């Protein structure tokens, strides 16, 4: 019962909260008046938009001032992109998502998830010392824990299959389940709820749902705001 609630209704609710939340947040912010003066930092270089994209995706200021953090940030965000793509690939019907050809396992073969987890642990423990400790607020830790749990249970499903030879659950069942959600004919294969590792799957989806619901209302929105903010700085 709990499994079904998490795997079906909660997913829909989470996605609805995510979408509605994003739209209301963005509308709220973009309805606010523009700042009356320029906020740029000089010297101004062109093309400003391209440079803002560079700032947004490659964090040059972090590379300059905190090189170690930068390495982890880049690995983390690049891995996240791969993970997002990996999940989209599960919709096998949609050829648009199958852009990276690889064998029939989750993209990165388990390493991407491991990398993300190591990065999260780094982000988490660096908050325990130095000035960052005094600046951190509880939600900074909670978001990392939420992300860690999501990634851990997600990866574990993958690791079990490819590294320990666990065979009761395979990728076909995820595909079947996700597609059924997408076409609004929810159908959870028996293996996803009844086999030994299925609780991992359920917990992964549970924390993933929470993450989606929290996203629009937390500083995770930096993912969206970073570009317009960097554009303000670039002028």
């Amino acid at each position, binding site marked *: 019962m709990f499994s079904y609630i998490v795997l079906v209704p909660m997913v829909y609710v989470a996605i609805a909260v995510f979408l509605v939340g994003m739209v209301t947040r963005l509308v709220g912010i973009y309805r606010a008046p523009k700042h009356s003066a320029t906020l740029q930092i*000089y*010297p101004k270089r062109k093309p400003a938009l391209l440079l803002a994209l560079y700032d947004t995706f490659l964090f040059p200021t972090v590379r300059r001032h905190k090189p170690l*953090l930068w390495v982890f940030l880049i690995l983390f965000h690049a891995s996240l992109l791969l993970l997002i793509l990996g999940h989209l690939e599960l919709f096998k019907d949609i050829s648009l998502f199958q852009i990276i050809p690889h064998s029939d396992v989750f993209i990165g073969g388990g390493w991407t998830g491991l990398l993300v987890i190591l990065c999260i642990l780094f982000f988490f423990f660096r908050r325990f010392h130095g000035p960052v400790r005094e600046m951190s607020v509880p939600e900074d830790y909670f978001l990392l824990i939420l992300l860690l749990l999501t990634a851990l249970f997600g990866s574990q499903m993958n690791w079990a299959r490819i590294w320990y030879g666990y065979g009761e659950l395979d990728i076909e069942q995820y595909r079947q389940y996700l597609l059924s959600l997408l076409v609004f004919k929810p159908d959870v294969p028996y293996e996803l709820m009844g086999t030994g590792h299925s609780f991992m799957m359920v917990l992964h989806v549970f924390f993933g749902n929470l993450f989606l619901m929290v996203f629009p209302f937390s500083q995770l929105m930096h993912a969206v*705001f970073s570009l317009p*903010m960097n554009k303000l700085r670039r002028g």
Partner: protein
Amino acid sequence: MDDTTRSDLLKLFRGKLDRAMRFYLETCTRCGVCTEACHVYASMGQTRYISAHRHELVRRLYKKYFKTRGKIWPSMGEARALDDVSMQELYDAAYSCTGCRRCMVYCPFGIDTQMIMSIAKLLLVGAGMEPDILTLLADTSIEKGKSFDMFKDNFLQGIQRLEAEVVKKWQSEAGASVIPVDVKGADLLYVALAGAHSIIPAAAVFNAAGENWTLSFFEAVNFGAFVGDPTRTQLILDRIINEAKRLEVKEVCICECGTAFRVMKNLSGNQPFKVTSITEVHARYLREGRIKVNRSKLTEPVTYHDPCQLARNGGVMDEARYVLSHLTADLREMTDSPINNWCCGGGGGLVALGEETLDFRMKSSRVKADQARATGAKILTTACENCHTQLSNLNDHYKLDMDVRFLSSMVADALMPGA
């Protein structure tokens, strides 16, 4: 704090929430990249001087009163109530921040701490907790704009005395009017500071360049901006805009005052005149050959301090170097680029508060003194009144043994006749 005061203050807060401000308040991830950006933290090492910590104080109030999550579960984001204690914290954060925006260069998102501090400053004005002297100075400026006729005679007499000094030092070729005032149809309106040092050298250079200029009745400095009061800032600005329009000038040239330049350039809106700094104008005169200066006059090494509001926040960097290249063969740049230059530690109204902030200004700017000393220069020049005062204080305090000078006076002193 009673409820009425609080709700009035929150109204002021809400008024500041434009799009950019919301971005800035929503986004900080407290990653700590800005840690070493602030000269106060770099000099004194206290966490409360890290820029993210400063704006977190404002953000905590924002979470409490403008965010649902701050209402449902305040401790999650450490949302804070607006009370006398948090107001005092805002005071400490806002008046230890010089608004130099060096941290904005560090931040991966480009959060503007100065702008967030403007909320703190406005709340302090609303609660009557701002430094009285800044408001007083701002009101004096505004009053002068309203009832100018009362001040006019004194002003003109003062100018006459200055004219004599200009003539004594520089053989003026400008004819009868050494310091023209109230000239309709002049090309350039020069907005100076109250003080001979801001008028005399400038007049000498304008006259040498044969500029068709006129001196503004008003001083450039905008105390409204220092105290963070948008209404007063605008009123002070409007005096100059109205004068420029009345005289139909093509250009408004702001004296060596970083804040005045940035405020005028950014907030004057679409006007029939352009806004320039005197450094840019001097560079132009040199480039066009309208003035000639003696390059061999200075024998000692020179270094230049980029005023934050002029350089990083105003875009005037290369012009100062161009001018200096005509004055000296031995310019010793400070380490790091102008965009990363340390603030002098006197901005944001701190120098205007004088003795009251002197101790803090000296302690918080040790890194600036070290940076200047490391150049090995004997002359420390800059193009901002605030910076000049602060650097002079630092020079005394840290025994830098440098000669702190205005760039514009160096140009005036090096003028050669007959360009």
